[in-house]
């Protein structure tokens, strides 16, 4: 896919800016320095470079300055200072996004919230927790360890809760526990003009007015900076059982998934890895799985409940010719298995040293999943590309990771073509171009293909909340 928008790129501080934005000049830097302290403001090349890049193949587009904030008040003051000068603001959590979300396409100030890493309040009785935006998901679960509760959303990267909220992230547990959409109760947000709002209370449900929480979940920093997040927690299940089950072919694995979901079996995780991905995972994470399409399962519940789920899934898998379940009950074995799954993206890139990954994440209604995956696999095989498939198939969501040589224009083009066909296929099946990674600036054309006229409504929302278009400009929709 061609990205039509050309990026203005970063401006050196103090130079004029043709795009109508204010510049990051000495005066603004002084103001920022007073807000966060000189040590927490950087204009060095390496820091800017790092903050303009995420984990994707998109090139780094550095901001003019990076501020490291430690409180909502600081973020508010920084955003206000930028708004007064019409300077773009790009929020940054851990930089593990996959569609160039953090690239400072119009320069400006990057607001790094990674040092906002405090757990503000655990309400164990209500099963929720309020954290600062920079808390990482693994750190949160480590902190919660003693409470018997856990936070289930688990994207591959050890991302920040703020970033996960901003991209509406999910992970392997989503089939049972939902995505960030279902699990955020309330947010503290710094608006484009620097005002601070709280979008909801802690009540589990509410009919009080417009659902601003859901508006900011998935807003990718284009409407404001998320500084605090209240999320739902869940009790750590009494019994957890994981299993690996190899299948004779891709179709039988996917059909097993579809039938499992349609039967209403409450699996906690059901993940597909194709041969190529298993090869990568075996090498990278030291597993020794057979090289054939395989499902990773996890079951949560009481002993009896888990047993029942297992029997039902085994019966379904047998129908499709698979009966070689290997079980992992010990926590260390389960952790190894799921860590390997989480590292699938890195494992894929490691197949070809020096290459970069284009991670895709179409999602279709579950009944269309087999069709969508099989046609895509055929297309990849015909193209000769290195592109393993791994997916949260229980949700109808799967990833093709194109492992490409960034210097090989022809290969890149081929990958873009296969990708475009796959996305259009998913949209034609009433699916979406992105199940969990978001739009960033890498998928903006697909967003138009998917939403059509609804884009105009999105634009109206954006301009109402950010009239100067200073919040992460150039992402999600064109203004």
């Amino acid at each position: 896919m061609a990205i039509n928008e050309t990026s203005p790129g970063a401006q050196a501080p103090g130079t004029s800016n043709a795009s109508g934005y204010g510049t990051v000049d000495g005066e603004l830097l002084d103001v920022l320095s007073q807000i966060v302290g000189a040590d927490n403001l950087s204009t060095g090349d390496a820091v800017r470079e790092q903050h303009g890049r995420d984990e994707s193949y998109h090139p780094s587009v550095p901001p003019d300055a990076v501020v490291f904030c430690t409180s909502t008040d600081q973020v508010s003051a920084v955003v206000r200072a930028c708004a007064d000068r019409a300077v773009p603001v790009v929020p940054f959590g851990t930089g593990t996004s996959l569609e160039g979300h953090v690239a400072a396409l119009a320069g400006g100030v990057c607001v790094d919230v990674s040092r906002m890493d405090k757990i503000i309040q655990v309400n164990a009785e209500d099963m929720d927790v309020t954290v600062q935006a920079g808390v990482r998901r693994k750190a949160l679960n480590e902190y919660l360890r003693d409470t018997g509760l856990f936070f289930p959303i688990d994207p591959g990267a050890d991302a920040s809760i703020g970033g996960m909220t901003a991209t509406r992230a999910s992970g392997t547990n989503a089939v049972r526990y939902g995505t960030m959409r279902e699990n955020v109760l309330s947010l503290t947000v710094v608006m484009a003009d620097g005002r601070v709002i709280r979008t909801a209370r802690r009540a589990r449900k509410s009919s009080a007015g417009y659902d601003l929480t859901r508006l900011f979940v998935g807003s990718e920093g284009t409407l404001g900076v998320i500084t605090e997040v209240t999320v739902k927690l869940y009790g750590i299940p009494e019994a957890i059982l994981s299993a690996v089950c190899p299948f004779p072919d891709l179709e039988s694995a996917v059909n097993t998934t579809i039938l499992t979901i349609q039967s209403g079996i409450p699996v906690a995780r059901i993940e597909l890895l194709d041969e190529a991905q298993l090869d990568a995972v075996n090498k990278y994470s030291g597993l020794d799985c057979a090289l054939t399409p395989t499902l990773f399962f996890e079951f949560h519940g009481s002993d009896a409940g888990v047993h029942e789920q297992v029997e039902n899934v085994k019966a379904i898998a047998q129908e499709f010719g698979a009966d070689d379940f290997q079980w992992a009950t010990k926590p260390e074995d389960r952790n190894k298995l799921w860590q390997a799954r989480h590292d699938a993206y890195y494992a894929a890139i490691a197949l070809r040293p020096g290459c970069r990954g284009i991670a895709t994440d179409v999602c279709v209604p579950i009944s269309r999943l087999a069709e969508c995956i099989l046609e895509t696999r055929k297309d990849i095989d015909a193209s000769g590309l290195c592109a393993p498939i791994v997916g949260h198939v229980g949700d109808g969501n799967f990833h093709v990771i194109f492992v490409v040589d960034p210097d090989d224009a022809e290969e890149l083009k081929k990958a873009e073509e296969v990708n475009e066909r796959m996305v259009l296929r998913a949209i034609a099946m009433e699916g979406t171009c992105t199940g969990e990674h978001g739009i960033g600036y890498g998928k903006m054309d697909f967003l138009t293909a998917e939403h059509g006229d609804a884009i105009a409504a999105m634009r109206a929302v954006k301009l109402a909340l950010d009239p100067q278009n200073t919040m992460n400009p150039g992402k999600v929709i064109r203004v």
Partner: protein
Amino acid sequence: MQTTFSLAQMADPHIEQANDILRKCVHCGFCTATCPTFVLLGNELDSPRGRIYLIKGLLEQDAAPSDEHVTHIDRCLTCLSCTTTCPSGVDYMHLIDDARAKIERDYTRPLTDRLFRTMLTMVLPYPGRFRLALLGAWLAKPFAKVLPGPLGAMLGLAPKRLHRPSAVDNPQVFKAEGAMKKRVALMTGCAQKVLNPAINEATVRLLTRHGCEVVVADGQGCCGALVHHMGKEDQSHAQAAANIAAWEAAEATHGQIDAIVINASGCGTTVKDYGWMFRRDPAMADRAAAISAKTKDVTEVMSDLGLTAVANGDDKPTVVYHSACSMQHGQKLTSPPKTLLAQAGFEVREPIEGHLCCGSAGTYNIMQPEISARLKERKAKNLRATEAQVMATGNIGCMMQLQDAVGMPVVHTVELLDWATGGPKPAGLD
């Protein structure tokens, strides 16, 4: 990781090697969480991934290193915790070696810094000079608190008393007790034998008691790590070559040597790397590789031999074992020392955050006193929390770093093993 070296650059074997290492990195960032400087400072550039990016830029642009490059690369402890964490097998150690060598070649440090570094390289590896320097340091120690930066840090580290040279460290052969099972060469080291000669003495007793003939080769000296980590490649290679020649000569005189035994894990990491250091030198490559192949930490050799004649005694203190970074990350030896201590009848405890460096890291505690002090305090707190009665470790640097901070005696693992199998009680445990 994508790299953009030109064909001309790739013709340089150093660049070709760096390119191979860089391309293995998938920038996942798992290394950052286990990097001591990132844990303390929270700056990406003070993490392995940040340094890898810096080094990539430095090598690709082929420009002189900037102050920023030098600051962040200097802050690396070379603890190699990142290489234990990295699932992609990025060879960070040899990458940063190259970066340090480039800085040494192409960057001019401030004069005082240069003089200070030169002084360290001229003193520390040479026991005679080091002993004299310690005498001077002892006299100047009262001024340690008022002297700035590294100089004060160095004086602060000087031991309270000087030991006499030990006769054990002279070139000679110690016969095995009973039938000889192995003939080994003991690397007697440089700074260690000045700071704590009891370690080599205990090592010789332990090894001979377990059937080793121990050769102390003539002509061996510093392993070369100290200058190597300052990027001074010519000197480090010269020191390494001298050691290789010394052990070869010892073998020619005394017969086949089964192992080069090292009781300072920092040196062990370096000697095990001699094969790599000389891999492009046709005259030395095979010889160096042969030496590296038979280099063993003393606990590896003892694990092979098995502890015998463990004396029973109910007064054995509880031991907290501190694994030196060069032991656990450099040599990837985690269980042998603990297993041996347990077999010797000690209750062995381990501190939390065992993977984090204590801040000693060769001359790091002299060159980067602030970061080093914070790591030392953190490590000491975790060690004290185990409520053990004695701390054991396998590296002299950690011993010197922690001895005044942990509030309990600090001994070398071999001293405890020696004691438990019939040797004297280590000094400080009375």
